[in-house]
C-alpha cells in the first residue's frame, strides 16, 4: 500500500511543477463558468424553472460540474497510449506493482491536488462573481463527497479501458478524443441529463456516463431528494464494480499480446 501512497505523493509533486497552470487555470475556468452562466441565463430568459431547476440552481450546477471535473478528470489514457507506444510499458510490467492500480493512483494524486488547489479556491472565487447556492444541509455534502469519489473511479476506469485499447489499435488518439467528447455530453457536464428528451434519458440510464458528472452535480445543487441521491450513489457503486470486468479481461488479453509481440 505504501508504494501507492508514494505514487500519489510523487504525482502531487509533479503537479506542483505545473505552477503557471494554477495562476491561469482558475481564471480560465471562471471565464468558462461565466460563459455558461450567461448562456443558461439567456436560455432561461423569462422562465423561472426548466425541468424543475431554477436558474440559480442551474448556474450552481454548471459551476460545480466544472469544478468537479477538475477532480475526476485525468489524462491517464493518453499517458498509457504514449507509454505503450514508446515501449515503456514493458518496463512498467516488470516492476513489482499493478500497473493499472498505479495509473489509478497517479490519477488520484492529480485529482486531489486539483481539488484543493484549483477547485476549492476556484469555487470560492466564482461564488463571489456569480449567484450560486450552497446547501446548508450537511447530508448533502456527505452525499456529494461520496459521489465525486465514485465519479472519479468511473471516469478513471473508462480511461483505463481506452488506454488499454492502444494494445490493439495502432493509433487510438481518435478514439481517446471521441471518448472525451462523448463523456462531456453524456455525463451531463454540458447539459443536465434531465434536459434531454425522454427517450434519450431512458437510453442514458443504462450507461455509466451520468455517474461521472450528472449525479454529483445534481446532489450538490439539491436537485435530488435524499432518496434519489442514495439510489444514484448506489448506481454509481454498481457501475464501478461492473467496469472492473471488461478492464480485467482486456488487460489479460493485452498482457498475452505483449508477451507474444514483445511490446
Amino acid at each position: 500500500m505504501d508504494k501507492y501512497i508514494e505514487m500519489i505523493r510523487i504525482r502531487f509533486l509533479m503537479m506542483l511543477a505545473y505552477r503557471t497552470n494554477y495562476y491561469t487555470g482558475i481564471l480560465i475556468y471562471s471565464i468558462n463558468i461565466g460563459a455558461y452562466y450567461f448562456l443558461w441565463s439567456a436560455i432561461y430568459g423569462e422562465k423561472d424553472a426548466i425541468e424543475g431547476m431554477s436558474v440559480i440552481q442551474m448556474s450552481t450546477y454548471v459551476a460545480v460540474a466544472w469544478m468537479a471535473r477538475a477532480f475526476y478528470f485525468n489524462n491517464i489514457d493518453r499517458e498509457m497510449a504514449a507509454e505503450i507506444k514508446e515501449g515503456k510499458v514493458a518496463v512498467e510490467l516488470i516492476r513489482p506493482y499493478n500497473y493499472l492500480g498505479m495509473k489509478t493512483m497517479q490519477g488520484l494524486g492529480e485529482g486531489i491536488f486539483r481539488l484543493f488547489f484549483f477547485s476549492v479556491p476556484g469555487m470560492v472565487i466564482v461564488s463571489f462573481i456569480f449567484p450560486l447556492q450552497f446547501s446548508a444541509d450537511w447530508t448533502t455534502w456527505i452525499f456529494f463527497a461520496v459521489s465525486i469519489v465514485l465519479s472519479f473511479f468511473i471516469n478513471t476506469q473508462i480511461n483505463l479501458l481506452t488506454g488499454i485499447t492502444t494494445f490493439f489499435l495502432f493509433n487510438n488518439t481518435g478514439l481517446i478524443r471521441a471518448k472525451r467528447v462523448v463523456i462531456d455530453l453524456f455525463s451531463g457536464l454540458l447539459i443536465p441529463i434531465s434536459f434531454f428528451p425522454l427517450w434519450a434519458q431512458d437510453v442514458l440510464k443504462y450507461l455509466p456516463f451520468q455517474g461521472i458528472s450528472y449525479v454529483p452535480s445534481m446532489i450538490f445543487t439539491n436537485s435530488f431528494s435524499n432518496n434519489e441521491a442514495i439510489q444514484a450513489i448506489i448506481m454509481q457503486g454498481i457501475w464501478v464494480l461492473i467496469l472492473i470486468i471488461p478492464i480485467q479481461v482486456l488487460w489479460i488479453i493485452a498482457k498475452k499480446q505483449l508477451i507474444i509481440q514483445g511490446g
Partner: protein
Amino acid sequence: MTDAITVRNLKKEFKAYSSRSGLKGAFRDLLTRNYKIVPAVNNISFQVKQGEMVGYIGENGAGKSTTIKMLTGILTPTSGEVIVNGMNPHKDREKFVRTIGVVFGQRSQLWWDIAVQESFRLLKKVYKVTDEQYDSHMSHVIKTLDIEPLLDKPVRKLSLGQRMRCELAAALIHNPPLLFLDEPTIGLDVLVKLKIREFLKEINDKYNTTILLTTHDLSDIEALCERVVMLDEGKIIYDGALKSLKEKWGEGKEIEFQFLEDVTLNDLNRITASSEVKWEKDEKKAIFTAFAEDNDELISLLIAKVVADLKVKDIDIKETSTEEIIRNIYDRGIS
C-alpha cells in the same frame, strides 16, 4: 584563406532552477523559486579555418553542445560575437543554415515515420538542391556510407548505427562547406565508426569541408583531427595541435620488461640507480614496468643497463596514450 568560424568572447548563461526537497519545499516553490545563473559557455574565443577538422572535447557538461547550438543558430548567445560562414547565425537564420550541416548524435534529425529516401527527397526540396547536384553528390555519399539497402525503411525501424549513417547523409544533402557533428559516433560499433571516419576524411579532402566534431571517443579525434579545442567548465583550456598536447602533457614513457630469470624490484632499482626511473611489478604476469621521462637518450641508456645485467625475454616501449593524457587533464586540471 577565410575563417569558417570566428568566435569572440562568446558566453551563454542558463538559469538553473533548483527545487526544494520534499512536499513542503514543493509548496514553497509554488510561490518563489530558487535559481542561480550558470555559465555553460564562459567567454570563449577561437577561430576555425576553411577546411580544418577540429575536435572539440571536454568532460560531460563542459559546454560543448551549448557551443555548437550557438554556432548553428539554435541558441542565442548571452553575449559575445559569432561569425560563421561570414554570417551571424541568429540574424539570417534561414539563409545561414543553408550553408551548414548538423548532426546531433543523441537526437534524430530525420522524420520518424517516413522512409529514409522520402526524408531525403523532402530535404532536397527544402535545401533547393537540383537533381543534377543531388545525383552526382548523393549517389556517392549513399555508396560510401553503404545505406542503399536502408533507404526504403522508416527511420524508427533503423538501428542506431544505421540511423546515424542516414543522419550523416541527410546533413550532407546540400553539400555544405561546414559540418557540425555532436557526438556522431556515440554507441556505434567499430566498423561503423571506421566507416564514418573514413567518409569524413574523404569529404574533407574532396570538398575542403570544414568539420567541427565533439566526441568522447578520442580515437575519433586521433583519426581525424589535427587540432583539438579542449573545454572545461565553459572555458577553453587548450587549443592547438593534438601532437603538441601529447608532447606537453604526455607524462613520459613506459617500458615493459619480461625476464627469463627471477628478478626482484630491488635488483632493478639497484641496476638503474643512477637514472630517474620508477619501477612497478605486475605480480600476476611477472611484467616489470619502468616509468621514465620521455627522453630518447635516457631510455636507451636504461635499456642498455638492464639488458647488460639480466636475461630479457621481451621488451615493449609504450607511449602514454592520448586517453591517459586527457584523463589526467580532466582529473587534475591543466596547470
